[in-house]
């Protein structure tokens, strides 16, 4: 089939800003986006720059934005893209500086992964709890818990897709936090509390907006957002309850337990009462809401049969 592919080309070192260049090429029907790029590089323009190695969704080198979606070029069929979007447009991954064409400088990604110390550590002051000279046996449940996050091939697709990373460069992002959970969940690691405490800060697990972009983008089903949710749960269960994020969850649960329903008149109240600065900042908004009949009364009758809901919720607490 004869196709058209638009490639975002740039060469910042030589002062060439990004622009789209369109190539028309005859390709076999089931060709991947990566093989199309390789064909173009070999036959048409040797200067087209991109990373690749395995061509089979293993090495994680060839991630790029394909019609806006961050994913592996070797794992994406040209025909599918044309069918879905009617066109084929490739761009470098987001959130990292472009070196040339589709190749980005990966350092911002690696900095984030390194920041979580992604290796199992023992408490420094003593010998490891497990015998280092032998293999360590783990039970299946522990392995299952780490399984998703162990599958990461560091392709950076999730980081490129991450919506908080669009607006905040301090956020560690999905892959790094998934790695962090990989280690927190590892029964051999002896620095859990330290890790959870370090990531309880700005840029850590509370900054995720749960947009699911990383879950959708990941070619290896790592589900980074689920790992972030697990980190939050571990943090609350480990007593790290001093953040707005953890208060949000625990207050939400309390309100639903009492009324069967979330009352948005009470939720922000609970959040701002702990912080007078916040209270002042929401006051004008509250007045405006009142004017539009949008301020729900903080006192609400519970739903019928609320006892059933309480029973379900209390069962867990036991």
């Amino acid at each position, binding site marked *: 089939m004869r196709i058209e592919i638009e490639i975002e080309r740039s060469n910042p070192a030589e002062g060439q800003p990004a622009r789209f260049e369109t190539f028309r090429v005859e390709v076999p029907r089931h060709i991947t986006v990566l093989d199309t790029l390789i064909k173009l590089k070999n036959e048409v323009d040797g200067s087209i720059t991109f990373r690749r190695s395995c061509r089979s969704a293993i090495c994680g080198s060839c991630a790029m934005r394909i019609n806006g979606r961050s994913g592996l070029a070797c794992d994406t069929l040209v025909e599918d893209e044309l069918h879905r979007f009617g066109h084929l447009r490739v761009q470098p991954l987001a959130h990292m500086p472009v070196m040339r064409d589709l190749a980005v400088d990966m350092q911002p990604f690696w900095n984030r992964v390194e920041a979580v110390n992604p290796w199992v550590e023992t408490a420094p002051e003593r010998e490891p709890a497990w015998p280092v000279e032998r293999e360590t046996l783990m039970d299946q449940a522990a392995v299952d818990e780490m399984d998703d996050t162990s599958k990461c091939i560091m392709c950076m697709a999730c980081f490129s897709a991450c919506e908080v990373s669009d607006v905040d460069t301090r956020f560690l992002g999905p892959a790094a936090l998934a790695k962090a959970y990989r280690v927190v969940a590892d029964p051999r690691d002896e620095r859990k509390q330290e890790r959870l405490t370090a990531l309880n800060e700005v840029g850590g697990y509370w900054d995720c907006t749960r947009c699911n972009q990383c879950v*959708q983008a990941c070619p290896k089903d790592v589900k980074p957002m689920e790992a972030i949710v697990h980190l939050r749960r571990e943090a609350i269960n480990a007593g790290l309850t001093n953040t707005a994020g953890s208060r949000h969850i625990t207050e939400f649960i309390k309100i639903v337990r009492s009324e069967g329903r979330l009352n948005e008149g009470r939720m922000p109240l609970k959040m701002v009462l702990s912080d007078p600065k916040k209270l002042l900042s929401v006051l004008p908004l509250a007045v405006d809401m009142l004017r539009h009949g*949008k301020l729900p009364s903080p006192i609400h009758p519970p739903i019928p049969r609320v006892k059933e809901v309480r029973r379900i919720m209390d069962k867990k607490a036991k």
Partner: protein
Amino acid sequence: MKLKYAYYTGCAAKGVCPELDQATQAVARALDIELIELTAASCCGAGVIGELEYDTQLAMNARNLAMAEQLGLNMMTICGTCQGVISRANVALQHTATRDRINQGLIGNGGIYKGTTGVLHLLWVLVKEFGLARLEQAVTHPLTGLRVGPFYGCYILRPSEYLGFDDPYNPRSLEGVIRALGAEPVDYSGRTKCCGFPIVLENESNAMKMVGAHLLEAKGNGADCLVTPCPLCHMNLDLYQGKAEQEMHRKIGLPILHLPQLVGLALGLGPEALGLRRNMVDAMQLAADVGAT
């Protein structure tokens, strides 16, 4: 055959967004869709309860689904977030072992869940069950010339493995509805993005940057208003729009309609019936412009 659903309002439509419930009921009446409200249904957990207590959230939704099942009806939601959470719960509850475990906690309540109920958002009902051709025929006041930016919100699109409706990267259902109403959909990249609502209480500035970016992009591409199937998106885009304007140092002033509000305008329902006065960013002018009185 008359369409009939077990109507799950979710919390927002009973709290901050009563206009969503009101507009839904008005549109359903106009389209002759029968809604039996699940008045004893609880919060779906919004993914928030599940962050700490996954099984509790699952059990709450098994209870909600069981109520629809007992009526012999599929459930209709009007909130993208509820849809995401309940769809996912329903997929999990298809596994017999999971369902049995969760049902243990429901014994003594109104009943257990057998796993036979479908869950559809109003948007999906319109596209799949009511049908866009029929909707087009029902339109009495076509929204000719109105340029509408669709804002899907995360949970009605992602993770798509639990939803199985729209293409998460190139959804078409809202565009289909907008066209059926005689209006014109506006394309912009923010249409599939996150509104930032889940972090608005934790990190308002990041959330407002997200809102601001999407609103300005849509406006730049010519949108007269946005339409959303999620009341939580609606809160961030509408209620917080003033804050987003502060964050972006720009006046934006883009009306944000709930899905049934937009549909209602094309069915000739007035601003009163659709609760348009409650929208924080003025939508009354827009209603007047399309001839709604």
